[in-house]
């Protein structure tokens, strides 16, 4: 497994390199944000340990840029900032985990292993299909660049469909994932909300597959 450590504190970086190498990782170190971004773009890393306060380019910007470029390597953020919004911002930017300094080295290793177990599937912070975009952190939906206001339920239906792009999603599945078990909802509630959603995002963007369910149509772009 190959790791990239982006850290401007030289001694912390070299301690990490030594420790991680002893665990059997191949470790590269970058001393600032811009170098780190460049190495992450071109090197084939399995995970990245990224400090937030970096010279030239902050950790937030590095991870946002990577995600924008469809680079999905797992990112573990390190920061001396322990404010709840600092952590939330880091994760919403696209980081997969966040550790505040000073951290326990044992926990760092465990979290790194957990990240590596998950592999590198696409984990976009903004869900996109055709010209429909949904940002779960901002709870914002745009269709062809124009913002659309959705209710919480409509938002949940669209989010679930966007997480299964191109697939047919059955009514039962939507019912199971969007509505909670306590609510005794009839299947036609799904039809009603899909109807609302169609009216808001455009009829042809959400097609009915007779007898099977619904599918986001590949329109726009």
């Amino acid at each position, binding site marked *: 497994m190959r790791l990239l450590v982006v850290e401007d504190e030289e001694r912390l970086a070299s*301690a*990490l390199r030594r420790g991680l190498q*002893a665990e059997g990782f191949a470790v590269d170190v970058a001393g600032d944000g811009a170098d780190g971004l460049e190495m992450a773009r071109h090197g084939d890393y399995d995970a990245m340990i990224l400090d937030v306060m970096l*010279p030239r380019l902050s950790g937030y910007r590095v991870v946002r840029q990577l995600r924008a470029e469809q680079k999905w390597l797992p990112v573990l953020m390190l920061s*001396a900032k*322990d404010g709840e919004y600092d952590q939330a911002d880091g994760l919403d930017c696209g980081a997969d985990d966040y550790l505040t*300094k000073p*951290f326990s*080295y*044992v926990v760092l290793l465990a979290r790194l292993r957990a990240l590596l177990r998950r592999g590198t599937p696409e984990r976009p912070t903004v869900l996109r299909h055709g010209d429909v975009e949904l940002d779960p952190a901002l709870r914002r939906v745009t269709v062809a660049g124009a913002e659309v206001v959705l209710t919480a339920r409509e938002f949940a239906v669209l989010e679930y469909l966007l997480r299964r792009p191109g697939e047919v999603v059955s009514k039962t599945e939507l019912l199971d994932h969007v509505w909670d078990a306590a609510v005794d909802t009839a299947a036609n509630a799904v039809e009603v909300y899909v109807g609302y959603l169609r009216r808001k995002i455009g009829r042809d963007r959400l097609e009915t597959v007779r007898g099977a369910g619904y599918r986001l149509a590949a329109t726009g772009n």
Partner: protein
Amino acid sequence: MTPPRRLGLSLGRLKLSRLSLRARLLLVSVVVLFVGLAAGGAVLVATMHYALMRTANTEALETARSVAVLADTGTLADPLPAAPAVRVQVVNAAGQVLFGSAGTDRLVPILYPRELRELPDGEGRPIPGSRIGFEGEVRVVALTAGPPDGRVTVLVARPTDELTQSVHLLRITLLVTFPPLVALLALVAWRVVGAALRPVEALRAGAEDITGGARPGRLPVPDSGDEIHRLAVTLNDMLHRLEAARARQRSFVADAAHELRSPLTNMRTELEVAQRLPDSTDWPELAGDLLTDVHRLSRLVDDLLLLARADDATTRAVRPATEEIELGGLLAEVAARYEVAYERPAVPLLVTGERDALGRVVANLLDNAVRHARSSVRLEVRPDGTDRRISVVDDGPGIPAADRERVFDRFTRLDDARARDAGGSGLGLAIVRELVRRHGGTVTLRGAVPPPGLHAEVCLPGQAAVSPPADDAARVR
């Protein structure tokens, strides 16, 4: 004043001050209104009464004069000519009625003999009307007339009942309209005072919102341009400054936390890694690294404590121990520690202050200069009138003019690279400014001549006593 009365008065005051401002204003205005209206009414009634009585007197006197003319010319005839409502008698010195107008008693004079004697000539007096068959009061005037051998007195009685009636009517009217008028005015005053005080209540509610919630609020500013508007603007200004101070404090604490955590992180990670890999660890090197961090941490803690104490001193105005210091010698000591060029001036340059603090000021400036200098750092002190000017000049990259104020803020580092091997705690210049300010001096940064480089200059007043900062406003920039 006797004690019980004083007690009563203070109790009264206490009660009044417990009332709301609106009620108090209303009470005062109603009392003033009441007294004013009552006095006005009383004056009106009295004037009216006086004027009417005068008229009655004049009328009676006119009649008396015309009869007197008759008496003087000896052409009196019975009955005497007079208006029907008036009774006229001509009485001789013995008190006998000689002539009378129609309907007048022919035997008894209108006035009793004593009254007649006492009433001066040409004057009038009131008598009860019942004596001569009138209702109410009657005004009687007496006028002496006739030839000197046969002096007679002309008595004219004029009833004043209708006059007193109209005065009475006026009084009744006033008394009846008075209470509703006061009530109406009180109502208007209540409303007006309420409207005037509404912005005050709005201010109070706004302040409660701000204190209650953590909402960084502004008080509602009324549209008017009055005192309350100005109060709201002033209070908002104060809130703004407090908020800014709090934000600065918060960011200072966050920065301090960050600065403390970074070396701790290094130490912890290095130690944990070393513990896991004891055999391949270069322990002496690790000890050196850890010592570097410990040094960095203790320096940071010292700086933080120094600044905290300085803040404390400015609020409590604690006078630090001062002594007379010879700057030339002090600078020589510091310069030797940093191995920079320094020429001790020939004459002793004295200032009053804290030796350690001034040493720290110079050390911090030299520390910065040495870190950024390319080849040389120059330290110098010279007198300027009564002032003492300490200059530290380096030939490093300098600081852009726009940033020269900012670097005095706590934890400002201009090199975003934040290379800690080169950088200090970020508190050095903040401490310099604080300490120099405590000595009543100033510190300025400018470009070195010739460029490149930075010229830091501290100007200390000679022999100045150490005093807490003169103006607090300068602190809250």
